[in-house]
């Protein structure tokens, strides 16, 4: 469909980072259809549950196929869609709660498989849609509605986790830098393997981190974001680890491993090697003489 639906009334709060992420994804998909000459319908956006998942309903312009499923299961749904149809460009959009808390168990297997999907993870370090509970990336000691006396868990470093698990493309973007983010998403889509673009996408209602991220001289806040230096070699795993352990929020391509076959490539090789049996042949194995 190309028109918007008047009945759909979900709204992000003013200033929500997800607006920028949506725009960046639109740019990246538009660029892909422009350069590949493939129709928009060859893109599939698989969305998680939470504020961020609503992105799939809010895309403007030509519409890709979408799947807005259940909480935490974007990756395995993407596994089925991609393996069934390697010709499709499969994009996962999910929040930090969906992807890193309930959906955590699915990251490692897709990394081991090098599943060829592009994940855009919108991290606001809070559960927004359920009104402000603590999330894996929420900082230690933070007061939220579910940690009224301060969060007792340390914050997860998602980039370090992705590196450890063997994700073959890792980048980080910021929702306010839409054009940079669009480029990262384009590069992730072009990557033949498991790609994650982790995005700092602040929640203006429950965890407004704009000042912390960008810095605010009036509040004596130094910016947390910093650009990955031009001399960084993303193919070097050790360098990537050093980068994500340096503190702050590095923006850019952190790690990229080329040449490792993706799951669909491996299965395609297998299919060339093994000759399938017809139903008659299968049945013949059981036939009495």
């Amino acid at each position: 469909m190309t028109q918007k639906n008047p009945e759909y009334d979900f709204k992000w709060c003013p200033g929500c980072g997800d607006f920028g992420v949506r725009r960046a994804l639109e740019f990246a998909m538009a660029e892909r259809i422009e350069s590949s000459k493939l129709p928009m319908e060859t893109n599939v956006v698989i969305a998680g549950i939470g504020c961020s998942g609503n992105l799939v309903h809010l895309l403007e312009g030509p519409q890709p196929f979408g799947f807005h499923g259940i909480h935490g299961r974007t990756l395995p749904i993407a596994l089925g869609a991609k393996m069934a149809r390697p010709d499709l460009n499969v994009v996962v959009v999910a929040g930090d709660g969906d992807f890193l808390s309930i959906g955590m168990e699915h990251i490692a297997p897709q990394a081991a498989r090098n599943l060829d999907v592009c994940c855009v993870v919108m991290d606001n370090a809070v559960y927004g849609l359920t009104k402000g509970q603590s999330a894996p990336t929420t900082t230690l000691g933070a007061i939220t509605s579910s940690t009224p006396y301060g969060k007792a868990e340390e914050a997860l470093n998602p980039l370090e986790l992705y590196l450890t698990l063997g994700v073959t493309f890792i980048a980080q973007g910021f929702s306010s830098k839409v054009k940079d983010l669009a480029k990262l998403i384009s590069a992730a889509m072009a990557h033949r393997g498991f790609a994650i673009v982790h995005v700092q996408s602040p929640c203006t209602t429950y965890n407004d981190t704009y000042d912390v991220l960008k810095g605010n001289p009036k509040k004596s806040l130094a910016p947390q974001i910093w650009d990955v230096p031009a001399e960084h070699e993303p193919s070097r795993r050790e360098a990537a680890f050093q980068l994500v352990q340096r503190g702050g929020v590095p923006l850019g391509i952190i790690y990229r491993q080329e040449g490792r076959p993706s799951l669909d490539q491996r299965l395609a090789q297998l299919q060339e090697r093994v000759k399938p049996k017809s139903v008659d042949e299968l049945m013949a194995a059981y036939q009495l003489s």
Partner: protein
Amino acid sequence: MKTQDFVVRFAGEGGQGVVTSAEALARMAAEVGYHVQTFATFPSQIEGGPTWTQARIAISPVLSPGDALDVLVALNRHAYEEHYPELRPGGVVMHDASFQVEEQGHTLAMPFTELAKQAGEARSMNMVILGALAHLISMPRQYLENFVRLRFKGRDAVIEGNLKAVALGFEHAASGEFRLGELALPQKPAYPQLLIRGNDALAVGAMAAGVDCYIGYPISPATPVLVFMERNLIGPGKFAYQASSEIEAISAVLGAGFAGKKAMSATSGPGLSLMSEGIGLAWMAEIPLVIVDVQRGGPATGMPTKTEQSDFFLALTPAHGDSMMPIIAPGTVEECLFAIIHAFNWAERYQGPVIVLSEQTLAERVQNIPKPDLSSIAVEGRNVYRGGNGYLRYDGWEMSPMPVPGGPGAYVANGSEHDPFGDTTHLPQRHVQMTERRFSKLKALEDGTYERHHAEEPIALMPWGASKGPALEAYNTLSSRGVRLAWYYTMYLHPLPPKLLQELQKKELVLVPELNYTGQFSSYLRSQGVRAESVRQYTGLPFKVRDLVRWVSERVEARGGRMVHA
């Protein structure tokens, strides 16, 4: 009179080749034209633990594993003690010579291992046993010898060793001076036959239905389906894959179904529990897929290698919220093959999830069946949307063609309540419309068939699933004793064929043999206005015919007696 039918049980320890003895006997007997059925129950471990398998061989089709043993082959003392009480009067015990038994008469001590060693083929103990059995039932030894030549074709040394084992077993039994009678000669069916296990029949059926994607997770007793698919579901656009959990499996099946493929998974109760939210999503987002639940004893880990029919409620409403899944429950090995084809047809036709309820005994059973005529059943494909843009995927109250990614009609397959576009909405009238749309689609599935005999009788016997065989045998016995009952059976449990339901609603009483404590299917029938009662057993084992005969007679008599004593 010659014996029409006999039952042999092999009892020993896991790893002793007990399983293969029953299957080898069944295969040998089936090859020469007998009808066979095996029955196995395993410990949930690889080596050790009491194991037994059973083969029933008859000159007419075998309906149940058999109640009483004609022959008990006991490989150790424990096995002997455990199974002796099930030997019929006059039955024979063949036991390993390494231990003594108290009972005299029809017992035969045999040095199984030594005879196998003498034969020069250490793994030929099965053949020693089969040779002895051939003597006991006066089966021509030549049947067995032909079977050995066929089975080990091209391996002359192995053939020689096994033939020697057969001869040694036969001669040793001949020294025992008694026989079990003579088994009537087989009447080999004129039509081609398969000797196949329930799980394999189901997997072959799925291939015949055109399954594209299989994603599963190992779980007893469904694992053989995964193993079959990993081996055979390969080729352009097709794949089988082991997921990291049942949650991943159902989610990936959803993704594949959404992407336009025929997708399935097979699991058992614990896996179905984990899949429940995903199955609800398939119902909500209208994604065709098939899930097989090979039932085992539950709840929780329960009894992984025992049988039960206790997942009917779970299969009907696995998910939260308003939904009711279509269920097809095969009752025989042959029905396993057709059930899954129908399940795929239903899934494509109503665009949603379909559950196939199998069970441990059926899954592990090896049986001879007529070679299925696949031309007797049309395979249905997806009704793909081929129009232009601006399509309303979830329009109206009824089925609409399904867009497939890459083609026209992009929409959002949505697990939240949605409007016709697929966008989320919580408007009351939309929830009413969409709920009614989802339930009304079930009407497309009211084409199930059913069996009925003596429909004029006011009291009916209606088993489901694999209780069909023992119930039919009990029904035949009861009929021969003048107990008048109607017989109904269908594998289409939900939605029930409407005419069947109408007939059942007119009965005074419908007796439902089922292997669960909660009386699940009769409870469902009562909710549909049928005066139904369960005949329950929850031992982890299938019904014995003699128990069903007694229990059903008691219920009928309690109703004021419709017994006509001959």
